[in-house]
C-alpha cells in the first residue's frame, strides 16, 4: 500500500521541472566557492577542508533550507488546489501514508542533492589541483547533512500542510535558516531543526569534531522527525476535510 502511495507521489511530480532547481543550486557555490578559494589561497591553507568551507558557506545556512521549502510547498500544491483534499482524505489510504510518502520523496531529493554536492566538491578539488588525499570524512559530512536536510523536510512539510499559501512556508524556511545560524553560533545548534543541516555538514569547522556528540545529533533528528510525523497525522485526521 505504501509503495503505491509513493508511486502516486511520483506520478504527481511527473514532468515537473522541480529537480532542475536542485541540480542548479549546488552548481553556484561549487563554481563561485572554488573561484573564491583560488583567490584567497593565501589565507585558506587547509586544502580540501578550506575548499569545503567555501562550498558550504551560505548554501546550507540560507539557500538549501529555502529551496527545500519550495520543494515541500510544491509537494502539497496539488492537494491545496480545487478541493482536492476531499479526494485525498476519502482515498482508501491511511493518512499517515500521505505524509510519509511526501516525506520520502522529499528525502530522496535531499539525498540526491547532497550526493551531487559531494560530486561537485570532488570535481572542483581535482580542477584546483589539490594534492592531498580526499578527506575521509566526506561521506560522513554528506550523510549527516542529509539527515539534517530530512528534518527540515519534515518541518517544512508540516508548514506546507497547514498553510495553504505556496510562498509563506518558503519565507519561514529562510527565517529558520537565518535563526539556525544564530542558534549555531550560540551553541544550541543541535536543538534547532534548521541548524542540523549545517551542523551535520560541518560547514564552519570541517576538520574538528561536531559541536555535539553523534548520538545527540541522531537522537534530536529522530525526535524532530517523530514530532513532525505525529503532528501531520493528527492534523490530517481532523482538519483538512473541514478546511477545504
Amino acid at each position, binding site marked *: 500500500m505504501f509503495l503505491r502511495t509513493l508511486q502516486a507521489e511520483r506520478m504527481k511530480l511527473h514532468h515537473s521541472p522541480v529537480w532542475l532547481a536542485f541540480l542548479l543550486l549546488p552548481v553556484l557555490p561549487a563554481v563561485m566557492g572554488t573561484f573564491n578559494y583560488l583567490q584567497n589561497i593565501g589565507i585558506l591553507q587547509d586544502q580540501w577542508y578550506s575548499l569545503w568551507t567555501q562550498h558550504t558557506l551560505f548554501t546550507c545556512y540560507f539557500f538549501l533550507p529555502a529551496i527545500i521549502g519550495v520543494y515541500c510547498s510544491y509537494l502539497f500544491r496539488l492537494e491545496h488546489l480545487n478541493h482536492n483534499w476531499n479526494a485525498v482524505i476519502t482515498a482508501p489510504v491511511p493518512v499517515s501514508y500521505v505524509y510519509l510518502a511526501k516525506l520520502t520523496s522529499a528525502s530522496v531529493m535531499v539525498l540526491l542533492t547532497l550526493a551531487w554536492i559531494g560530486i561537485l566538491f570532488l570535481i572542483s578539488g581535482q580542477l584546483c589541483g589539490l594534492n592531498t588525499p580526499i578527506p575521509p570524512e566526506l561521506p560522513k559530512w554528506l550523510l549527516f547533512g542529509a539527515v539534517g536536510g530530512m528534518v527540515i523536510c519534515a518541518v517544512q512539510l508540516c508548514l506546507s500542510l497547514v498553510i495553504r499559501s505556496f510562498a509563506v512556508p518558503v*519565507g519561514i524556511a529562510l527565517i529558520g535558516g537565518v535563526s539556525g545560524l*544564530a542558534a549555531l553560533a550560540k551553541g544550541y545548534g543541535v536543538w534547532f531543526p534548521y541548524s542540523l543541516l549545517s551542523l551535520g555538514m560541518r560547514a564552519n569547522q570541517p576538520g574538528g569534531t561536531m559541536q555535539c556528540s553523534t548520538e545527540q545529533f541522531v537522537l534530536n533528528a529522530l525526535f524532530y522527525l517523530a514530532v513532525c510525523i505525529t503532528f501531520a497525522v493528527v492534523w490530517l485526521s481532523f482538519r483538512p476535510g473541514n478546511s477545504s
Partner: protein
Amino acid sequence: MIKALAMEFQKIRRRKVWAIVAALISVQILLALWGVDRMDAHELSQGWMHFLYQFPILNSIMMPVMAAVVASRLCDIEHKGQTLKLLNTVMPAGRLFAAKFLCGALYMLAAALLQIIAIVMAGLVVGFEGSPPLDKLLYYLLFTTAVNLTILLLQQVLSLLFRNQMIALTVGIIGSFAGLFIMFFPQNLERFFLWGYYGVLMLVGMDWDRATRISDFYYMPVDWTGFSILAVMFCMIYIIGRSLFIRKEM
C-alpha cells in the same frame, strides 16, 4: 488608479501579507543587532558605517526572498480564483499590473523604512559616535528601495505569467544566492546581475587587517552609473513584463 490600488488592498484583507514581511524584517534586524552591545570604542566610532556595510549584505540574503513572497502572495489570488479573465472585462490589464506593483511596493518600502528606524534607534541607544548621518541614510533608503522594487517587479512578472509559483520562488532564491556570492568577487561582475545591485550601490567599504583583526570602514562615492543602469533595467522589465502580461491568455 486609486480605486484599483484600493481593490488590491481589499483582496489581501485578512491574508496577512504584512505578517511574513514583519517576520522576515524582524529576524534580519535582530541578526544585524547581534553583538552591537559589545562594541569597543573603535567600533563605536564607526558604528553608523558598520550598519551601512552590514545591511546591504543581509539585504541580498533576505530581500529577494521577501520580494518573491510578497509578489507571489499578491498574484496567487488571481490564479487560485481564476479571476484574471473576469477582471480583464472590467479594467485594463495594464492597470491591474500597475496596481499590484504599487501594492507590493508599499510593503517593500515599509520594510526599508523599518530598517532605517532600527538603525537610528540602535545607534542612539548604544551610543555611536556622532549624530546619525542623515544624508547617507537617505541614500541607503533610496538605493535599497530601488533594488527591492526592481526585484519585486521581476518577481511579479514571473508570478503573473506562470500559474505555478514554484518557478517565481526558485528564480528568487537562486538569484539571491548568486547575488550574495557575486558580492565577494573582485571584478565588477555584480553590475551584470540584478541581484548584485545591493552590493553595487553600497555606500561603505571595508578594509580588514588580517594581522590585527581590526576592520576599518570608509565611505565610498555614490555609484550613479550603477543607479542609472538599475533604472534602465527597471524600465525594461516594466515595459516587457507588462506587455507580456497583457498579451497572455488570461
